[in-house]
Every structure is written in C-alpha cells, then in structure tokens.
C-alpha cells in the first residue's frame, strides 16, 4: 500500500502550531488563549506520533509520549479553567486587558 510522505504530516502539524501561536498573540479572551495553547499541544502530539511511526517503528516512545502529553494537557486545562473561573468571580471579566492585578 502506498504510504503518504512523512513531510506532509509534519507540514500540517507545523501549520497548526503556528496558527496556535498567532492565536496566542492576538486573542484577548483568556479562554481563547487557552484554546490556542491546546492547538499547539496537539500539533506536538502529531509530530511525536509521526516520527515514531516513520523513523522508529519498532519502538513505542512516540506513542507513549503523546499519551502522556494528552494526560498532562488535560490536567493543565483543568487547573487553568479553575483559575479563569476564579478570576471571573473576582473581577467579572476574563479579558486580558482588564487583568492588571493579581490581588483580590
């Protein structure tokens, strides 16, 4: 069966990473920033898996690192959303413009 070239997958994940970086720079809502971070994490997972599949097919490092990265990103999202909800409770807004103090 004809396999797709590895570079195609890498190009897709690179595009996804830099779209995430663009969103991280330009978005003004904390949750939207978090969504951009999620895009970046996801693109790195694709890279791990593709390198594992194409270059080292008899090991499973890439698969397991992606698995653990998914777990870590779930944990990170949970804590970040808890912080964001707490911020919303204190200043009634989650726009980065209005976040100029960490005290409450």
């Amino acid at each position, binding site marked *: *069966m*004809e*396999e*797709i070239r590895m*570079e195609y*997958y*890498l*190009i*897709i994940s*690179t*595009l*996804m*990473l*830099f*779209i*995430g*970086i*663009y*969103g991280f*720079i*330009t*978005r*003004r*809502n904390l*949750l*939207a920033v978090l*969504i*951009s971070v*999620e*895009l970046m994490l*996801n693109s790195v*997972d694709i890279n791990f*898996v593709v390198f594992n*599949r*194409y*270059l080292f*097919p008899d*090991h*499973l*490092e890439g*698969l*397991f690192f992606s*698995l*653990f990265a*998914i*777990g*870590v*990103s*779930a*944990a990170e*999202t*949970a*804590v970040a*959303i*808890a912080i*964001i*909800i*707490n911020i*919303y409770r204190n200043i009634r807004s*989650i726009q980065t413009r209005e976040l100029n103090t960490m005290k409450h």
Partner: protein
Amino acid sequence: MEISLQEIVFFILAAVIVVCSVLAVTTKRILRSATHLLFVLFATAGIYFQLNYSFLGAVQLTVYAGGIIVLYVFSILLTSPEGDHAEKLMRGKFFAGLVAALAGAAVCIFIMVTHSFGAYRIIPGEIPMKEIGHALMGTERYQYLLPFELISVLLLACIVGGIMIARKR
C-alpha cells in the same frame, strides 16, 4: 497521476485541520471557537487512525474531544455573558501576530522540506494491544510504568489544586 484512497483521506483531514484551526483562532464568538477546536481534535484523531495507532486515536477522542471540550464549553457558558463578541483587534497587534506566525512557519517548513530524514521503515498493520499494555505496565527499558504513575500523581495534584482554586470562600 493517480491518487490513492490513503491520500484522499489524508488531504480531507489536512484541509479540515488547517481550515478549522484558522477559524478557531479568528472567529469572534468564543463558543464557535471551541467548536472548531473540537473539529480539529477529531481530524487529529483521524490522522492517528490513519497512522495505525488506533489506541492513541481512541484516547484522543475520549480525553480531548470528550473531556476537555466539555470542560471548555461549560467554562465558556459560565464566564461569557450573552452575546459576547471579541473586540476589534488593533492593527499593530494583528500584523505582529501574523508576521511572527508566517515567518516561523516559513522557516520551519523550509528546514523540514530540505532536511533528509533518511529511509522510512514502516511496519504495516496495527500494533497489537497486548504489546502496548506490556510496554505501559513494565518496569524495564522502553517500558513506562514510572511515567504512568507520575501522571496519576499529577492528575491527583491537579484535582486538589482545581478544587482549592475554584471553590467558593
């Protein structure tokens, strides 16, 4: 030029990923942004299935698409008032982000295309689930019990931390 089924599936997934990621970071409404992120995660799971890593694809679908997106949608509904739109972007910020992203992407893709990765050695077919299970639960070399336990401790810490941060005082 003849196009195989693999390639058709790949190009559909690639188009979904690129279009939906762009929409996820540019759309004005935050809830739509989360929905586009969901489509990106589905397409990523499709790529894992296409690479014959079904276990990882299933994990991606259950943890990301099933768990994290629900968390996002709930928190968006909790924190965004009715009819909330993103404010107009300043021109300077927009161009700074666009230039940074395009320049970075151009450099990375150029390096990737010109670099030779060596010969591929693709083993066709699925990895047996038994092998994945043994690798996940073993303590020898190339086995991953320690990171697995570490993840469980990290998740516990995050549960406690999340409750501590978000509880009412």
